[in-house]
């Protein structure tokens, strides 16, 4: 039998306790065990950013993190970001600026961008571009995503 681990963590502000196989990724745990499908599988190798989540306030490719390593940590997924005030502003900026096409990369970018704005309110173009370089998008050509993040970052800096 594969080894299992008992873990306790906070997920979008709610305490969770779970028993997970040692080899399970945080992405699989979120999607398959907890039914939070907003976090996407894009490559499974940490190359595309579609599975980006926040762990203790930093962004992580959840496909590269073991579920077991979530023990004692604070996880926020797109589902958590989307219902925060900052997340709603960011979502509105994504919508208004046309940053969404097929939308598959969008949740990962939303999480990454929310983190970026938190760290760099009023971030400039170059900072935004660097800040989202780990998130691949095949539809938009990134221009409107950068515009959306810039609009939300500007709003944040005026708070």
């Amino acid at each position: 039998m594969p080894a299992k681990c008992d873990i306790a963590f906070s997920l979008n502000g709610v305490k969770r306790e779970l028993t997970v196989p040692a080899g399970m990724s945080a992405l699989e745990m979120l999607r398959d065990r907890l039914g939070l499908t907003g976090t996407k599988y894009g490559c499974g190798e940490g190359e595309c950013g579609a599975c980006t989540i926040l762990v203790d306030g930093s962004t992580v490719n959840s496909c590269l993190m073991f579920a077991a390593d979530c023990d004692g940590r604070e996880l926020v997924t797109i589902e958590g970001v989307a219902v925060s005030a900052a997340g709603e502003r960011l979502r509105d900026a994504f919508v208004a600026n046309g940053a969404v096409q097929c939308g598959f990369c969008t949740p990962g970018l939303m999480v990454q961008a929310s983190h970026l704005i938190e760290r760099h309110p009023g971030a400039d173009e170059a900072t935004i571009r660097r800040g989202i370089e780990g998130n691949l998008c095949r539809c938009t050509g990134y221009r409107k995503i950068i515009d959306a993040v810039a609009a939300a970052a500007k709003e944040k800096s005026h708070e």
Partner: protein
Amino acid sequence: MSETLIGKRIPKMDAPDKASGKTRYIQDLEVPGALHAKILRSTQVHARIVSIDTRAAKALPGVHAVITAADVPWQRPIGVGKDHLPLKTDRVRSLRDEVAAVAADSEAIAQAALKLIRVEYAPLPVIATTQQALAPDAPLIHPEPHGADSSAHLKVAGSPVAFTGKPDNVAMTFDYAQGDIAQGEAEADVVIEDVFRLHYVTHCCMGVSGVIAEFDPNGNLLLYSNTQVPFLHKREFAELLGIDPARIRIIQPPIGGGFGSKLDIYPFEPIAIFLAKITRRPVKLVFTREEEFLASPTRQPVLLKLRSGCRKDGTLTFRAVETVHDNGAYTSWGATTPFVMMQTISSLYRVPHCKYHTMAVYTNNPYAGSFRGYGNLQATFAVEAHMDKLAEAVGMDGLAFRLKNAQDPGEITPQGMHFKSCGFKQCLTTAAGRSDFLRKQAENRARWSDPAPVKRGIGVASMLHVGGGAKIYPSDGCGTILKLDDFAHVTLMTGASEIGQGSETVLAQLVCEELGLPLSAVTVVNNDTDITPWDVGVHASRTTFIAGNSAIGAARKAKKKILDAAAAKSGKRAEELGLSGGFVTSASGERLFELGKFLRSLHFSDKADLVMTTFYYEPPSRHQDKQFKGDVSAAYAWATQVCEIEVDTQTGIVRLLKVTGAHDVGRVLNRLGIEGQIEGGIVMGQGYAITEELRVENGVVRNPNFRDYKLVTAPEIPEMDVSFIETMDGEGPQGAKGVGEAPAICIAAAVANAIHNATGVRITALPFTPENVYRALHGASEPPVWNAA
């Protein structure tokens, strides 16, 4: 009058859900009781299958079925060429080939079961290049009818024969001619010839491929599918299964990227259906990213020989083209891309004498599908290189030379394409003017002898593409059902599929424009073949044009019905009335009836029929004949793109700094949406030109991951200046033409011209990776040679 919605920046209707992580893609759907499937793919590039032992896999707890071709003797050939079976019988012809499949309680169990399947292969010689494939003594890739080979242990008596076999490795040929090439060459003062080599790339949809298949107890099939052509595929799935197409329902969950990749039926779809049929359980099959790289379609490598000539005054006299396409092991839509390439060759510029011969050749490589632009990137790359070279040879600037040969509105080309609206010359002058093309080109050239290692270049290229549907099938239609309920809520049921491009928003917008309603009044239903009317699929940049006209037709019917009833009630003439801001209004703008209440009264008091149906079919025109003469689209889209680059001659690194584009789109309907299409297309074109290459060596894909297959990332995108040339096409919905593919087409060609402008070196092979560019600049690369047999 309420303000028009046309040309405004309308946010995509499904964007809030997508940005909140609420959208459920095929990967996210859970069907209760579903089994998870995995496919065992060949470990050999070309081999006979000697034996397959599935006993150990079948014995694994949690495994419900392990199937090979022997378990589905009734399987039939699939794909455009109908030249392969979903599960291979006697031999494998590429590394991706499907040998067996497992359905299990979980993906992990299915994966574990694959490892227990023992396959014995007898290797065959690998045909890795078209040159090898065309050699006189080349082994044949399709020597005998599949499934009927006498040595095949999987042969089952009476099973359908897949394919009749081929005496050579030529999958498909196209020949086109107009005028007399000898005359054109005799009339030319300058004749040039070059060989171009275009590389492999693949779609890289962010959402990997997947399907869910489920049969009900009556044998009706429900398929959750990412297909771009649900209605045509119903028939194909029915043929495959030997059932009535009416018993197949296809639901398309939101699709994580299309770009042409989902236009054919691929083996994984029938395999999931077989497993669902055999296990009598729903079966879900989703690719890994590695599988997506190995087993989804490609844009194929093309070797292209171009010979062209012009007079001293710059008038083109002839163009002769030969191409060899690496078709891969099987024939999908990739083999038919010459159909589009020949349009660019014959009709982008006026060329009186033209000849085009092409072959798609079987190899043991990944097989080629359709990909945004459909052969046009390859054709444009060559044609636009020669436009620069010919201009230089006759001492003209590239802009004047192009303008001299550019098409005008009203022209009917020798191939038979009729350019009813055509803003080509405005595209050229606008893009050149806004980028200050001629001045920068001259300045960059003057710096060739400068010692500075980093050079600047500017290059131009233009494109022609179908923009009013494409008559690939006997009809290019789309239906709409539009229902009005009380409260003035509209449900628009359209055959048009949404793949992220924004069709649902533009269709709703066109309906609201007619009915004077806000976008929030419309729900769009576009993803269920049991509900939506027929359509030929989302391809060929056709949806806004064809489905848009269909949606407008339904909205106009509704409007007439409402206004006729309002006229009867108000005593005014229907022609004096309008719909605006949610009201029936008089000619003077007076609000006569609130639309919601009025519709309610029509339901309750007038027993009115408020369901509209329409079909739009392209207007009659001269259909292409067997010689490819005729008109393929009701309208054509034009664009010119100017690319500015920086090339570091010490490293070979090419940076795309700025793209100035001018697009004849007929009319801008949704400015936000069309900018998104163009910016996305430019960056996809940038990837094709500079960063992307599917590296296939001896039939093996060497870089099936995003680490080694390099997509463009946010820091690398160019500045983009996009202008719209609004030619108001007479047949287009509100004057619009298609645009989806256009922006990706010219980038590689313009970058090639820019590299020449920067360095004086013309590179005729893609991609412009640092290594390739460095070698070319330092004379260390072999330019492509014509080695077709």
